[in-house]
């Protein structure tokens, strides 16, 4: 029973509230200090993490006893690096935002801080209802950030984004309540605690439709084909720092939900839909990759590549194989670490092209900006899973996992690896090489932008050199997460 997680969780919100009462100029620094403190705390958390133990730093209190909702937080191998990713992503994004002028800065930074708290909460929650509270709460700050500070047709975009995601997550809420109520034994107290839900059980038929509701929420969030309808509008209109967080971190909450909730609690249901979800994942890999190299808007290139990458992650999870799940968890971290700097770099590039986001009008920027080009190149290589990068290890594990008994899907998915090289290199060439676009001014990155991006790139390189740092810590929890679902599958085979 510790308070550490609660401190990490509410620190951003506290600084956000504090910022609201500080003078205009100061609020951003308060929030930035909060994100840095969270990062420091997260690093301590990793250093102190015991890879041999289960759930750690557990906080378990009553919250709403009437509804069986507990305030339960904990860290294990599944979410340790997701928390680190969140902390790592928020610092550079807040830093970059803090140096731009915003209208109503206090409000913007309050929403940034609230968003960090909500995302951390979703990752830490060990109670299903608490998870949903934070899962839905995430939408509020993003709704305001996109609608208030975005570009173009932003109100429409943000409304679409919220309706899409909330449609999914409200259905998940209904499913979760059903799960809680139906799993309550006669005369027992209703509970949403994940550990408790895992002990109780509901019939296979019930599991099937509840899993479907959960999958809807998670796939919309991820996003996966064909539930990605909100993606183009949202990615186009969102402020760059916000979209870095949305694409890099928020997309992981959904897939994380499968490992944390769906597979351990409803293994039979998950097993039932395995085939369907794998097909969706493979489709997403192909569809996302193909669209990513046919887009003209830089943001959309990354958006569609994310759909493909999340397809890989889902494939890894639903292969129900140790290696596959390992790869998926690793890839969740890697993808986040790649997308955040990618978007920050795009922000820099677009600023040098007079605000144009069209690939046709970019180009030739590497000439006078070697640092920018180098950082971008490393990130691009990581995106295409160059051997030697952590992404390579992640994708390889996913593919190994799916080859075990979903061979055909594994083979089709490997095509995605090739396609990734095409769109990543295309993105790099069109922006950095080629003929300069009409409004392009080739300038080096500012010091602050380098300070924001370089540490992330350093982490990418470090993970490429030493992937075991992550894999060792996630192994135990990941194996435990898929164990049930896998044994259900094996029983079916034996029958």
């Amino acid at each position, binding site marked *: 029973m510790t308070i550490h997680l609660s401190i990490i969780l509410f620190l951003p919100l506290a600084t956000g509230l504090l910022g609201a009462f500080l003078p205009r100029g100061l609020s951003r620094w308060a929030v930035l200090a909060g994100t840095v403190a969270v990062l420091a705390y997260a690093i301590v958390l990793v250093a102190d993490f015991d890879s041999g133990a289960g759930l750690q730093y557990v906080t378990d209190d009553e919250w*709403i006893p*009437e*509804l069986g909702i507990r305030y339960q937080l904990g860290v294990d191998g599944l979410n340790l690096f997701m928390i680190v990713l969140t902390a790592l992503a928020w610092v550079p994004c807040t830093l970059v935002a803090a140096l731009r002028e915003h209208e*109503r800065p206090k*409000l913007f930074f309050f929403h940034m801080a609230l968003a960090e708290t909500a995302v951390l909460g979703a990752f830490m929650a060990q109670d299903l*209802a608490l998870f*949903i*509270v*934070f899962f*839905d*709460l995430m*939408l*509020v700050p993003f*709704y*305001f950030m996109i*609608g*208030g500070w975005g570009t173009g047709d*932003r*109100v*429409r975009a*943000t*409304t679409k984004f*919220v*309706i899409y995601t*909330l*449609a999914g997550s*409200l*259905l998940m*809420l*209904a499913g979760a*309540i*059903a799960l*809680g*109520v*139906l799993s309550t034994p006669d005369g027992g107290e*209703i509970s949403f605690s994940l550990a408790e839900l895992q002990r109780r059980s509901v019939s296979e038929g019930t599991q099937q439709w509840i899993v479907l509701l959960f999958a809807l929420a998670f796939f919309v969030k991820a996003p996966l084909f064909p539930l990605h309808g909100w993606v183009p509008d949202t990615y186009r209109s969102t402020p760059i720092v916000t979209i870095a967080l949305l694409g890099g971190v928020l997309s992981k909450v959904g897939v994380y939900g499968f490992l944390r909730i769906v597979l351990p609690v409803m293994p039979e249901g998950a097993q039932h839909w395995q085939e369907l979800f794998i097909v969706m994942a493979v489709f997403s890999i192909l569809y996302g990759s193909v669209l990513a190299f046919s887009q003209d808007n830089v943001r959309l290139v990354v958006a569609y590549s994310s759909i493909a990458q999340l397809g890989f992650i889902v494939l890894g999870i639903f292969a129900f194989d140790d290696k596959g799940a390992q790869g998926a968890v690793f890839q969740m971290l890697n993808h986040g670490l790649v997308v955040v700097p990618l978007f920050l770099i795009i922000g820099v590039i677009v600023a040098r092209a007079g605000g144009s986001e069209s690939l046709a009008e970019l180009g030739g920027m590497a000439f006078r900006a070697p640092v920018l080009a180098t950082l971008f190149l490393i990130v691009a290589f990581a995106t295409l899973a160059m051997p030697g990068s952590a992404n390579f290890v992640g994708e390889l594990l996913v593919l190994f996992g799916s080859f075990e008994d979903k061979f055909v899907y594994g083979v089709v998915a490997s095509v995605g690896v090739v396609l990734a090289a095409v769109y990543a290199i295309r993105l790099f060439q069109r922006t950095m090489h080629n003929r300069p676009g009409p409004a392009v001014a080739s300038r080096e990155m500012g010091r602050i932008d380098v300070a924001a991006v370089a540490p992330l790139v350093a982490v990418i390189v470090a993970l490429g050199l030493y992937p075991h740092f992550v894999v060792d810590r996630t192994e135990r929890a990941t194996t435990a997460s898929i164990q049930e679902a896998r044994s259900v599958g094996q029983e079916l085979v034996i029958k």
Partner: protein
Amino acid sequence: MLPFAEVQAPEIDYKALSPLMATIGGSIVVLMVALLRSQFVRHTLVPALTGVSLLTAIGLTIWVWEPGEQTPIIEGALTVDTLALGISMLVYVAGLVCVVLSLRALAAREAGHGEYHSMLLGSITGMVILAEASDLITLFVGIELLSIPLYVLCATELRRRTSLEAGLKYLVIGSVGSATLLYGLALIYGATGAMQFDRITDAISSDAVGVGDPLLLTGIGLAATGLAFKASVAPFHQWTPDVYQGAPTPITTFMAVATKAAAFAVFLRLFEHALGLTQLEWGPALAALATATIVVGNVGAIAQRSLKRLLAWSSVAQAGYLLAGVVVGSTLGLQATVFYLAVYLLMNVAAFAVVIARERVSERGDDVSALENLGQTQPWLAWPMTIAMLSLAGFPATAGFIGKFYLIDATVAGDYAWLGIVIVVGSVVSLAYYLRVVAVMWMGRYEVELPTVPRRHVKPVAGWSPEAEARAQSEVAAIAVLFAAATIVFGIWPDPLFDAAREIGTALSGLN
């Protein structure tokens, strides 16, 4: 010749009746005092006395609060149990809010402060009687006492045509509802031969009547229809948008919140207590009504520009959610319904208070565009409205989320899981209009898509009066902030509401 000597006066429990006497007495005193026509009396003393009367009633309610099943008093006419008292609390709070919002309202001045406040207290008395009613006659008396002053109050902005229209429309449709209800009650009496709820239960459980008795079922159907009019349950909701829009906004606020609470009190007591044995018969029918209401309300709200109409349609949808709690006929459902009524009060009062604040100074009246850019110009109004909208839509960290959670919990536990899904789907649709209001306030400079209705330019309600001073809104803003804050507080720490709901749940025994 009547043998007078043999008539036994019923035993009267004055303690249990004391909250009622506070409002009845208040109603009479206020009317009398207002005969002194000095400015001080009209503008200060009358509202103050009304407030005192309501606060007294609240105090007495706490005094007589006694969990557990209570025996009916006055020959079975009224049951003063926690269900009735809990609902009365909501009604009193709504009344207090209405008094504060009316302090500088045009309606009170035009209709006369004494009459206005006296009728308000009269209507409150009716609602309390309705919540306590435990026989068919008192039920009807309550519903009439509730309605008739409201018909008048809706029309108190004498010089505005829509106000008069609202009053008349409400009168006509309300009377149809009352008549239907009365007919239904008569048939129930005809089938069971009993007036008191307890005896109706006994009669149904005896062999003589039986659960499937056609006379009884027709009676239940008609009674449900009559109550559906009052609670604005589809398809009997058509009056709601017009009346909500036409009535003076403080009255709309009161009506939206208090009438709904009282109507659902009857739904709960009549259906779950008196007719509880026939739940299998009326459950599916009410579930169908709830579904229709959720769909109609949410779809109807999408095309609205007028905030009052939007809130009216949203209140129709919310009635559907509430009805889901009645359908399951369990203690959990009862608690969830009462819980949601309390939450509904908080978020609607916050929203309506902002509407009042804006329509008093904006030439757009209650049009959505009156809120344009409010986030920048008046955050103290924009935040309460935002919180109210997010809570109505069911976002977490607001009381609305917990309320919906509780209702879905009750529907699933009562084997109506599909109704829980309907609630959820309704909430998704509702985002379309709730979020638009939020967008107009915070993102308004970048044209938010609004339904294409020509922009109305109306005189601010305060256009003719001293209300036009912007500072005249401090009490309205205070209400908005207070209730929005409560929405958040109860969203994070709902225990007090749950405790109350649990005690209210003990009032009706014999539920699942």
